[in-house]
């Protein structure tokens, strides 16, 4: 039975401004929640508080409803994987993997058997008797993963576990983590600065900025329904148009768009992937292509619509050159209004 994690009003300050402020987050049993944010936003601090590596100033960390604040890290039923593999240099790979079992008092033969099994699961058979330093960075990180999972922890904490790997390895290890996490059904809290990683891996994403949780929800919501301008910007939304909402209609430089938002000033946010080019007789706004960038798989374009810059993406095969006259359609279904200055 997997464990549920609840963070309640978690606050960490080192005397000055809080690094983590009043954070509430629930991680449902067996799910993977990603804490996403730029470096210095407090996400790693949050993870360290869950691990017991630091004491929060206020608030609580609960596993299955019971506070674990009084427990030192070694008594919390969790395992953690850090950014670097951190293998113990004085031990063989098998002894590294078996370290957690040894601390639980599991006998030598049983430890060996389960360590070998765990190494198989991370697709590293036959390295058991090597030493750390004789493996590549990606292999070492997989050993680290095996070491964390071998003792079947109730909670898995991952602190940027892929960021030290190069691009190809990163995807490989990421997919392995996803697979192992599902197989083991272990409740996982995952810290990353990479929105793509969070999107691909997580059931639920929590975006942190300046020590505060900005938005929590399924990954898709961050693209389709950002809660604020900053959230939209963090997820790479390039289009934000200031305007005013009156009676369920946003009015601004792109004309009128029906939206679901309260009356008042509002910024219309729409992803560049959602903006479409349409024919001259269809609903839309006329403009001139200001610039195009070929990215290999697509073409990013900026269209000047009477002084307002609209960013959009078209397929790599679509002919589109600067100076071309086009008509741009912003589908209301993909638009969100966020408060100005949010």
């Amino acid at each position, binding site marked *: 039975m997997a464990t549920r994690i609840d963070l309640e009003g978690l606050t960490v300050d080192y005397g000055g401004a809080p690094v983590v402020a009043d954070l509430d987050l629930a991680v449902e049993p067996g799910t993977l929640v990603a804490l996403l944010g730029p470096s210095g936003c407090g996400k790693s601090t949050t993870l360290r508080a869950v*691990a*017991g*590596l630091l004491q929060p100033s206020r608030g609580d960390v609960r596993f299955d409803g019971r506070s674990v604040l009084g427990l*030192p*890290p*070694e008594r*919390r039923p*969790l*395992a*953690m994987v*850090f950014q*670097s593999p*951190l293998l*113990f*240099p*004085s031990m063989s790979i098998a002894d590294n993997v078996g*370290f*957690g079992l040894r*601390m*639980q008092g599991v006998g030598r033969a049983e430890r060996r058997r389960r360590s070998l099994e765990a190494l198989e699961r991370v697709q590293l058979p036959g390295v058991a008797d090597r030493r750390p330093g004789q493996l590549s960075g990606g292999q070492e990180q997989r050993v680290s993963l095996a*070491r*964390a999972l071998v*003792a079947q922890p109730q909670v898995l*904490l991952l602190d940027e576990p892929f960021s030290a790997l190069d691009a190809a390895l990163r995807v490989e290890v990421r997919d392995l983590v996803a697979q192992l996490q599902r197989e083991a059904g272990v409740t996982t809290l995952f810290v990353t600065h990479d929105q793509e990683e969070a999107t691909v891996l997580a059931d639920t994403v929590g975006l942190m900025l300046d020590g505060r949780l900005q938005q929590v929800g399924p990954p898709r919501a961050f693209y389709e329904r950002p809660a604020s301008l900053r959230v939209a910007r963090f997820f790479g939304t390039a289009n934000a148009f200031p305007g005013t909402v009156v009676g369920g209609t946003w009015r601004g430089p792109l004309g009128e768009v029906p939206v679901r938002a309260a009356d008042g000033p509002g910024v219309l946010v729409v992803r560049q992937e959602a903006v479409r080019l349409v024919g001259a007789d269809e609903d839309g706004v006329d403009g001139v292509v200001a610039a195009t960038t070929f990215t290999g798989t697509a073409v990013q374009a900026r269209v000047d619509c009477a002084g307002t810059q609209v960013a959009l993406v078209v397929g790599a095969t679509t002919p589109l050159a600067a100076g071309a006259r086009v008509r741009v359609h912003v589908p209301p279904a993909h638009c969100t209004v966020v408060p100005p200055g949010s």
Partner: protein
Amino acid sequence: MRALARVVGLPLLLGGLLLPFVPLLLWSVARRYPYPALLPTERSSRPLGLLVDPQSEVLQGLVSSTVIALAVAAVASLVGLSAGRALGLHAFRGKRLVQFLLLAPVVVPGIAVTLGIQVFFIRYGLADTRRGVVLAHLIAAVPYVTLVMGSVYANLDTRIEEQARTLGAPPLQVLLRVTLPAVAPGLAVGALFAFLISWGEYVLTLLVGGGTVKTLPLLLYAYLGSTDTPVAAALAFALIVPPVLLLALTSRLLAGQDAPLAGFGRA
């Protein structure tokens, strides 16, 4: 050019290092070795025999030196382990002052310090005892060990300790199974320094030991002043051989890729 340096330079270097030991070796097996003779005219096993003769003060000196140097190495290692950790890993108020005080004995001659605190040594009954000598040697040895351990800890990724904690290891297990193995090579270097400092110490031993605690350097000095040059030569050997052996055994730790200190770069 490099080949020439190797052909000429290396023998010169080795010769310069080893040549002074040749007369020592010859003297230590001599009974008579009058001036113009190239080799001793009469040989004897007496001087070297003294090194293993339980009745001789030479053996006692060897034992005394060894016990004191081991004790100094042990205590200095313990102090260096904790002080080095604090200085290498943590920022705290007054850190610069602590650093200065720790390193002061390197700058201030030990004799000045010892003269100053000898009153207390006498008051607490430490004068003329091995314990007192060990304490005095520690003044000289602790700064070096602390320096070494400070740099070892500064290079230690302490997340490895956190990793061990999250894998279920209580603090004592982390220390024994993770931290100590990781700093052990550096600690060995530090302990070696402490041993060598104590082993070769003369002035502090004389001041605090008051002639009662006779270590090898003290005996050597006494025999150098006498006419018994063969025994002095044997003593010099006893003084030189253990450190050289220790260095040979630990040279791997002082240089090379995996050395705990930058040392002299790659071997």
